[in-house]
């Protein structure tokens, strides 16, 4: 059993769940207590000892089903199939097997062990033999679909499939000579054929299952990682949904990191008054020192997002990210623009992020189907909303700076920068295309404190991390 649990722990690890050696030992101890008789108990024991995150539960359940029912279920299913094919009831089948045993006693001395077990429907023994063979051919290394055939052949060889085939053939020939009655003989013959076929089936299914175990989650994970590096521009609908989850997760992670950072620098100067008060019980002897809590100025954030078609996805995640982290800032205001600029702060305050995003991107506030005009948007921002920018504001502009050859009005950006703490420009285009064609990036870049490429989730995360107060 230990072997199996160790292998299961390995399997969990391969699927991205961290199981330590100590936890595996716990699992062994726990399964000793619960015993193996009741499957659900055994499952609960492993769950309690090996899985420590609620998010990992679904993966565990799935793997448990695959791993622990695995081979046994396959074999059971296969022998049920044989029974059905011969259209016998449970009782008939049992009687038939008894007759089979009787017959084997007289005529099957030369049969190999496995062939006997197979014909007697001895599922436990077959399972054991399969597992041994699997270990011998190192099946735990299987990873790709393409390897299935190879391992199926190797497994068959290890089991001595050819020999069994030969033996069953010989047994059939012997049967011909026996006097069993026509009905019985036909049944036995069919049984032998089906059994052989069944062994083949089991091998194939077993190999496939082993392969699936190993790459089920690995593939998923790989895709998630790739998602981080994937350009916002090329996302399918399904990936968009996945991405939304990923953004929420990243935001949570960032929050945790920040909480730790904060704690480290929480203590400020020595606080005489509170120290005296706290130590009055000790006759004024300062056993407990008290320190002032340092106050931190939370920055204000103003986001301006280009929501024209080309950069919409980037804007979407930028907004989602900023609003997931809202409580880290004293104030977040957000504007969207294409050829005109409009404020969406209010809809984020009253709705949840998902709805607010839809409102912002649907076009109720500004026309989102116009041609981008950064110059005009900036000018309108300066005339209407410049009051929103003050010395504590960090202004983040997200856009590709593709101005459709309109007037850039870069003086507006200068104006904004003079009033703001800093101006950061995030461009979802690849850096080496900046400044070509109608891109005004270089002209605008002069008036920014920081210009960053922001084409995928990982880059976005890095940028947001910099914005967070330290």
């Amino acid at each position, binding site marked *: 059993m230990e072997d199996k649990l160790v292998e299961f722990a390995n399997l969990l690890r391969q699927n991205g769940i961290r199981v330590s050696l100590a936890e595996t030992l716990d699992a062994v101890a*726990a399964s000793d207590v619960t015993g193996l008789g009741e499957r659900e*108990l055994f499952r*609960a*024991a492993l769950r*309690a000892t090996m899985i420590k995150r609620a998010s990992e539960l679904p993966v565990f359940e799935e793997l448990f089903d695959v791993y622990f029912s695995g081979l046994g279920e396959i074999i059971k299913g296969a022998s049920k199939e044989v029974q059905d094919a011969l259209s016998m009831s449970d009782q008939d089948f049992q009687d038939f097997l008894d007759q089979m045993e009787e017959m084997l006693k007289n005529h099957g001395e030369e049969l190999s062990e496995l062939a006997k077990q197979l014909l007697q429907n001895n599922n436990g023994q077959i399972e054991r033999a399969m597992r041994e063979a699997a270990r011998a051919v190192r099946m735990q290394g299987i990873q790709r679909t393409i390897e299935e055939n190879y391992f199926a052949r190797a497994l068959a060889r290890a089991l001595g499939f050819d020999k069994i085939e030969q033996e069953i053939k010989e047994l059939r020939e012997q049967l011909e000579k026996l006097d069993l009655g026509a009905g019985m003989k036909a049944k036995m013959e069919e049984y032998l054929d089906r059994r052989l076929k069944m062994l083949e089936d089991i091998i194939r299914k077993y190999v496939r299952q082993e392969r699936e175990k190993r790459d089920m989650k690995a593939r998923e994970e790989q895709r998630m990682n790739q998602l981080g590096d994937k350009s916002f521009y090329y996302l399918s609908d399904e990936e968009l949904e996945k991405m939304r989850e990923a953004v929420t997760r990243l935001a949570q992670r960032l929050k945790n990191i920040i909480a730790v950072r904060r704690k480290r620098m929480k203590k400020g100067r020595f606080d005489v008054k509170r120290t005296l008060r706290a130590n009055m*019980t000790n006759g004024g002897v300062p056993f407990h020192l008290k320190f002032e809590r340092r106050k931190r100025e939370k920055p204000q954030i103003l986001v301006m997002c280009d929501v024209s078609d080309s950069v919409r996805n980037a804007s979407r995640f930028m907004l989602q990210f900023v609003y997931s982290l809202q409580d880290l800032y004293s104030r977040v205001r957000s504007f969207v623009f294409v050829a005109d600029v409009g404020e969406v702060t209010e809809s984020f305050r009253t709705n*949840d992020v998902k709805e607010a995003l839809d409102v912002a991107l649907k076009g109720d506030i500004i026309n989102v189907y116009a041609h981008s005009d950064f110059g005009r948007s900036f000018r309108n921002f300066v005339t209407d909303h410049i009051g929103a920018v003050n010395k504590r504001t960090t202004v983040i502009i997200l856009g590709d700076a593709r101005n459709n050859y309109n007037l850039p009005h870069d003086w507006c950006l200068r104006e904004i920068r003079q009033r703001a703490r800093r101006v950061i420009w995030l461009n979802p285009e690849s850096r080496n295309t900046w400044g070509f064609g109608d891109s005004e990036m270089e002209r605008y870049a002069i008036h920014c404190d920081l210009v960053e490429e922001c084409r995928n989730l990982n880059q976005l995360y890095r940028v947001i991390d910099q914005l967070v107060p330290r």
Partner: protein
Amino acid sequence: MFSSIEEVIERFAKHDYIASRRIATVIYLASALQKPVLVEGPAGVGKTDLAKVLAASLKEELIRLQCYEGLDEGKALYEWEYAKQLLYTQILKDKVTEVLVGTTGLAEAVDRIASEDEVFFSERFILPRPLMKAITSEEQVVLLIDEIDKADAEFEAFLLELLSDFQVTVPEIGTFKAKKIPLVILTSNNAREMSDALKRRCLHLYIDFPNREQELAIIRLKVPDAAEKLAEEVVNVVQSLRKLDLKKTPGISETLDWVKALTLLNVQSLDNALVDETLDTIVKYEGDVRKAQEELKEYLRKARTRRTGTETTGSSDDKDLLN
């Protein structure tokens, strides 16, 4: 100690706690393997209650440590009673002088005092806090470390010694080993991720919201005077509320509060004006209340059409008669 999983379920039931097999297995394992249990899950699903009932069903004392930000060793483990030490030195001044009689020079006096100093650093002057109490208790106890996620990460690290070896170290005295290993339950609302080191030392139990039947059973158990119809309706509404995107999803405790409130007001079914006014027992935010009201209206509308649906067939006959 429990002898089987069935016994856990049975004894818990006696104390009005419906433990699923899953929960019972973990509790049984914890008592058999002497391992702490980390219970996670949304607020209000009975995590804290689990520890209380465990203590009650084993007839053991429950020692509770409520965690919060800034909780330190002094509050959780032990503290020297400075005030008492000072008082004793004041009172014993004469005795101290007596001890010092015959010493010549400062060095000798200090030596003399030093030979007696363990008097002041003995268990007598230790103020035991919950963890120390649990360790030094003569009887086995249930130790509940509540909302461990609210405590700082440093505190979590400090717990490790306790959780793996069931011992604590006081530098001046030495190591206290547990006389009877306590059953430890830690609860967490997942405000932050616990460290792997802590998780490794614990069994893990995730309690989710109960399904319809479980919740109904819990109501029947805890509020026996609630009208059967009311209980069913409440469960239906709460279950559908949990599917909404609420700021604070109602837990079992909220459901119970609501049923209790409605029963107290002598409400028999949700089709009542009072229901609207008691909604704030299950949802705690303004925005959530609005959503809950809509959900409730929707539910009542459906319930009514279902009922009138059967009634209209009856009344249509009447109409025929009139015609």
